[in-house]
């Protein structure tokens, strides 16, 4: 059988195997590769860095386990950044599958940095309703989330004493995997309530937020695992996203090769047919 025929009828499971190995091997034997911090990631970093120490920030973590590899590093690094400035963090979750995994990140970073629940941070948990919840928070956060993720009364926590609505926060940090998330916050909250906003999003949705960056509706953007890795570098950290960059690079090279090889095979096939 000719090479062209072999490649044309290649069992896709060989491709699956190569992808798996290209991702697995660098995870076990890591290689160093240089990372540069892009302008939009620097914008995200600078927006937090410019906050007065001790500010109370709203962080909406709208993701679930399906977006964990991209969202977890962003969430953890942003939390460490905020806590390092002694900022207090009020967290909400608008994705069904998210509250547990977001709470896991909060507890992980809070324990690491010695932060106390109810005083330094609070997780208000999940609320159904998407955009309606976002607009409701513009009136009162405590009445939208009467109880937090642990079942306690929201208004009783010390951190919530000075929090009323969006006007209580100098910054909104949106870490989101899709709908509802960053786009809805820009539409319903950023314009209506005039709050400064930065976002960390999955790579698949990142291109659609570039117009918001250019218009100033977003001050900074982390796009996918690469954005998370750049943010880790900007913070002097090396976490899951940085470790993922080498397998990511090899996999991308392979997909690029697949595009070129697939078209090469078709071109050779057409040439053989003409001959």
């Amino acid at each position, binding site marked *: 059988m000719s090479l062209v025929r072999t490649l044309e009828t290649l069992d896709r499971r060989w491709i699956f195997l190569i*992808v798996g190995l290209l991702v697995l091997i660098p995870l*076990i034997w890591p290689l160093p590769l240089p990372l540069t911090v892009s302008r939009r990631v620097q914008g995200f970093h600078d927006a937090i860095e410019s906050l007065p120490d001790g500010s109370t920030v709203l962080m909406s973590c709208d993701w679930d386990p399906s977006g964990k590899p991209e969202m977890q590093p962003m969430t953890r690094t942003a939390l460490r950044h905020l806590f390092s400035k002694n900022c207090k963090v009020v967290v909400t979750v608008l994705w069904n599958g998210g509250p547990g995994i977001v709470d896991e990140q909060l507890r992980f970073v809070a324990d690491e940095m010695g932060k106390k629940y109810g005083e330094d941070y609070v997780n208000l948990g999940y609320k159904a309703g998407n955009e309606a919840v976002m607009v409701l928070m513009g009136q009162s956060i405590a009445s939208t989330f009467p*109880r937090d993720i642990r079942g306690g009364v929201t208004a009783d926590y010390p951190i919530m004493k000075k929090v009323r609505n969006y006007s209580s926060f100098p910054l909104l940090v949106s870490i989101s995997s899709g709908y509802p998330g960053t786009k809805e916050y820009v539409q319903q909250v950023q*314009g209506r309530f005039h709050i400064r906003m930065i976002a960390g999003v999955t790579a*698949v949705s990142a*291109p659609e937020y570039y117009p*918001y960056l250019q218009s100033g509706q977003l001050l900074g953007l982390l796009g996918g695992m690469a954005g998370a890795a750049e943010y880790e570098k900007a913070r002097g950290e090396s976490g899951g996203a940085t470790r*993922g960059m080498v397998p990511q690079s090899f996999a991308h090279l392979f997909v690029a090769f697949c595009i070129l090889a697939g078209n090469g095979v078709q071109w050779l096939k057409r040439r053989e047919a003409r001959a």
Partner: protein
Amino acid sequence: MSFHPSSDVGVWVAALLTLCIFSFLYKDNPFYKFAEHLFVGVSAGYYIILNFWTVVVPNLWEPLVKSFSAPGGPTAVELGDYRIWLALPGVLGVLLFTRLFGRIGWLSRWSLAVIIGVYAGLKTTGFAQSDLVSQVQASLVPIFTGSFWPSFNAVLFSIGLICSLLFFFFSREHKGALGGASKVGILFLMVSFGAGYGYTVMSRISLLIGRLQFLVEDWLGLR
């Protein structure tokens, strides 16, 4: 490099379920089907409990019960405190369940009407403000800035924006000047779709990296 498999039963359960789902890559099999149905069942049960304890109880039941002992009585209303009036969304929520019963299923339309009305209104104003007004405003930038590359980029951006918008104008046939502009618009759109494809590949590969990181680091402890 050391090998320290986890001693946590939960991690082993998670790892085995992960491998059951990955087995689909070889071919569909009973392990995958088992994991798939387990996932659907666990998800459905999770959503029921989540919405019950995080919305139905704190946002409906508790305020309703408290309204009878609150100062001013159950009918007093102020922003954020709707007391007995919360019975209305409660009834609408229960009416949704009439969809399960054919003959009285039409009652659920009242509940849907409220949801559709609220979200149609919110989305209309949200899109108008952020995706139309703000975006058009941000597009009105100086084209000639005094230096070459910013001016070039501004001209290119403006041409791309106008031509791409003209591509979506289907009230006239794409001939003549409109046809030419549409063709230019298509080129910009193709660049955009290509960039989107590149980012999509990055996103999907990241998801695989995450799972393999779990298997390698958390389950097998290979560090």
